[in-house]
């Protein structure tokens, strides 16, 4: 309850801090240096799908929809206006006029159609193609039988109509994810597979320079349609810097944001130093860390056993192990996600009750099993804590610490990994809607070979409820829909398909010279930082 109040207050603060009148007072200009360990993979919005390029792509490209800075509230972006038909199956978007790509050409409805056709075309190999499954004609394009989505029509240069094959309450969110960014055909054709290294969009920044393995430079788009945005003239992303080096450089004034965050080894030292108190911003994240239990592998086919595991894990201790960089979880949804149940208490930590449940399931003497875990810190340490907790109720879990790709592969097999600690691979929402936390990781659709439903939990009754919830497209049904989702996730917990452990918090450190509302430094959508709204104090 308190947390909600706080979150609400924070959102209010963020909203007031960004009212146009105040935002206009901020002078444009200046620059900042952001550091990363790994080189940027690609800036092609149809391909890029990691947390490092996610926010960069958002700064280079625009889509029809976006989110208010620092929040999860949808707002219009390239769409000046839109209307939804009564049956929820036809979306008509009216585009802003005079928006220009970085190459100077005006963006029109043809570009919207081209971009959607491109991202769904199998040859593009877009990891996000599946998000567009509700558009009419998607199956034909995905199968390679058609080049163009039947459901997307250009009505006039500034109007585009999108027909769906089924009502989809998340469709506006889909229009806000990076994969829906609008790209100019001529630039894509010019660069082919290397478009990701030579991105041309209509976003607040344009790519000025990319020296592989060294740096990228973003330059302010002088013609950006949103007045007064972005604030900075230039952003330099320096890559190849270990987080620890990045922190030292920030402390010496050579860098402004360590993009990979504060290195765990230095976390306590830095957060306890009063000198940095105002420079570290904490925020929620649409993330849940959980233990999956494969319901197809005995004894985890018994709900009592899964409940016992839920009760055996001491979540507070695990949060302490990671220096308090998370809050304990009792349900799949993170607290900042619509549909989170504030009144649900979950399974309290109670080893004795857990033992009793095991005895009830006929496993009073315990059993042996395996716990798969991604082999980078702090995950093996967390797995050891879980192992100790399970040992206390008689479950002997052997830890299998493997490379990330190997754990994911094991989870995608029906009979390989009895338990997986999701750390380092856990689900972070693609968009702030509860449905994104169900289908791929708890629904029947994800319980397939190579899927992400590592519990292999498939409850057709809940799947039907989920479909029903996603058919409530009328904005007036928002509360009703959230309630429907709330029930679904609590039902999942009644079956104890997962043992939710914690929700990670994000901590961004920034240099003294950067300004901007706290919320944009831990933006829930522009991960890790909403670069468009950061400003430089030295030019004010």
């Amino acid at each position, binding site marked *: 309850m308190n947390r909600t109040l706080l979150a609400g207050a924070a959102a209010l603060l963020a909203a007031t801090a960004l009212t146009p009148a105040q935002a206009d007072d901020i002078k444009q200009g200046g620059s900042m240096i952001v550091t990363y*360990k*790994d*080189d940027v*993979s*690609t800036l*092609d919005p149809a*391909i890029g*799908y990691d947390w490092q390029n996610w926010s960069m792509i958002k700064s280079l490209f625009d889509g029809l929809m976006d989110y208010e800075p620092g929040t999860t509230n949808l707002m219009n972006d390239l769409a000046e206006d839109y209307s939804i038909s009564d049956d929820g199956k036809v979306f008509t978007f009216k585009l802003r006029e005079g928006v220009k790509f970085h190459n100077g050409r005006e963006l029109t409805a043809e570009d919207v159609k081209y971009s959607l056709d491109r991202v769904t075309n*199998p*040859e593009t*190999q*877009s*990891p*996000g*193609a*599946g*998000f567009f*499954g509700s558009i009419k004609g998607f199956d034909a394009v*995905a*199968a*390679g039988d058609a080049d163009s989505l039947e459901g997307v029509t250009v009505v006039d240069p500034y109007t585009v109509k999108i027909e769906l094959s089924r009502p989809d309450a998340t469709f506006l969110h889909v229009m806000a994810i990076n994969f829906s960014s609008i790209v100019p055909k001529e630039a894509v054709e010019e660069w082919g*597979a*290397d478009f*990701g*290294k030579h991105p041309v969009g209509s976003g607040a920044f344009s790519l000025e320079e990319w*020296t*592989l*393995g*060294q740096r990228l430079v973003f330059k302010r788009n002088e013609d950006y349609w949103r007045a007064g945005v972005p604030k900075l003239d230039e952003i330099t992303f*320096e*890559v*190849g*810097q*270990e987080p620890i*080096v990045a922190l*030292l*450089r920030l402390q*010496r004034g*050579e860098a402004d944001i360590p993009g990979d965050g504060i290195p765990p080894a230095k976390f306590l030292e830095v957060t306890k130093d009063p000198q940095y108190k105002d420079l570290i911003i904490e925020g929620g994240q649409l993330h849940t860390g959980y233990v999956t239990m494969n319901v197809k592998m005995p004894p985890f086919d018994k709900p009592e056993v899964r409940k016992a595991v839920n009760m055996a894990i001491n979540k507070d201790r695990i949060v302490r192990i990671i220096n308090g960089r998370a809050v304990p979880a009792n349900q799949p949804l993170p607290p900042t996600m619509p549909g989170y149940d504030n009144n649900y208490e979950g399974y309290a930590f109670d080893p004795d009750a857990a033992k009793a449940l095991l005895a009830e399931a006929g496993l009073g003497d315990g059993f042996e099993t395996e716990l798969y875990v991604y082999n980078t810190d702090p995950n093996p340490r967390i797995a050891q804590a879980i192992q100790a907790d399970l040992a206390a109720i008689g479950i002997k879990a052997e830890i299998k610490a493997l*490379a*990330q*790709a*190997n754990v*994911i*592969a*094991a989870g*995608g097999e029906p009979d390989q990994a009895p338990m997986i600690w999701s750390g380092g691979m856990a*689900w972070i929402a*693609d968009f702030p809607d509860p449905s994104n936390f169900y289908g*791929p990781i708890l629904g029947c659709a994800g319980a*397939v070979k*190579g899927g*992400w439903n590592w519990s292999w939990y498939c409850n057709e009754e809940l799947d039907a409820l989920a479909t029903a919830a996603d058919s409530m497209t009328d904005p007036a049904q928002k509360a009703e829909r959230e309630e429907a989702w709330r029930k679904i996730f609590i039902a999942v917990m009644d079956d104890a398909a997962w043992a939710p452990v914690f929700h990670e918090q994000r901590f961004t450190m920034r240099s003294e010279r950067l300004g901007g509302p706290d919320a944009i430094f831990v933006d829930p959508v522009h991960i890790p930082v909403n670069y468009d709204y950061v400003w430089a104090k030295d030019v004010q």
Partner: protein
Amino acid sequence: MGGYVLRRVLQSLLILLGISFLTFILLYLIPADPARQIAGRSATAQTVENIREQLGLNLPFYQQYFRYLTGLLQGDLGRSYLQKTEVGELIRSRLPATLLLMAGAIISELAIGLTMGIVAALRRNTATDTSLMVLSFVGVSSPQFVIGILLLYVFSVQLGWFPIGGYGTFRHMVLPSLTLGLLGAGWYSRMMRSSMIDVLRQDFIRTARAKGLKRWQVLFGHAMPNALLPVIAMIGIDIGLFMSGIVVVESVFGWPGIGQLAWQAIQRVDIPIIMGVTLVSAFAIVLGNFLADLIVPLIDPRIKLR
């Protein structure tokens, strides 16, 4: 000589072919599915299948290897799964940085190693000699990531003399070159010392001294050139040592070379990059050994190649 070169070239090619096969088979056996990796977590089964087909990952092992080899002969190292760029381009763009670092390392290892070796030889069996040799032993046996972090901490963080990692100016180059070169410096100082002691015992040195040459004339005009021989033969082999060293040193110092590229690729199981860097390194090592063998007879006519 011509026959020898031809034989060595063929031998080298065979070695490279063997390495490519072994690396390919090792990476093929990793239980990660590249198609799924490219497709990402939200992909439909159909997307994954499409990608698998487009990349030829559904083909049997020998066909995949043959495809790779065919590309290789045309200079095509494939395309990175995660970086979405030609592996050749990634390596090309990072090679200058690595070569620069190696040049810096060779200079620092020779400067430090030879000086230490000569001084130790001239002060044989004194405290200076002993402490220099202990130092060289420390250099040879310290892991590079320890030396690197230590240098970084003392000279960059505490004293602020050098930038904390990065690339671009001479000052950026000093610490990584030293770190990479210290191992070699240790070896060279020991080699130079024993080689120098050997030479100083020879008759022609006594003759040179006897005919009234100054001490430094004897040292640099007569002793050094002879003592250097075995050292030069080592430089070619050094390239192999460096190849393993650059992965660590480049990562510690944020040096944008192929070692860092390899390290990042290994962490993310980006198979085409791992494969490409391995082959390029193998090529460099084979080439280094080959050149070392060719250069020695040019310097010392007493050695003949057969």
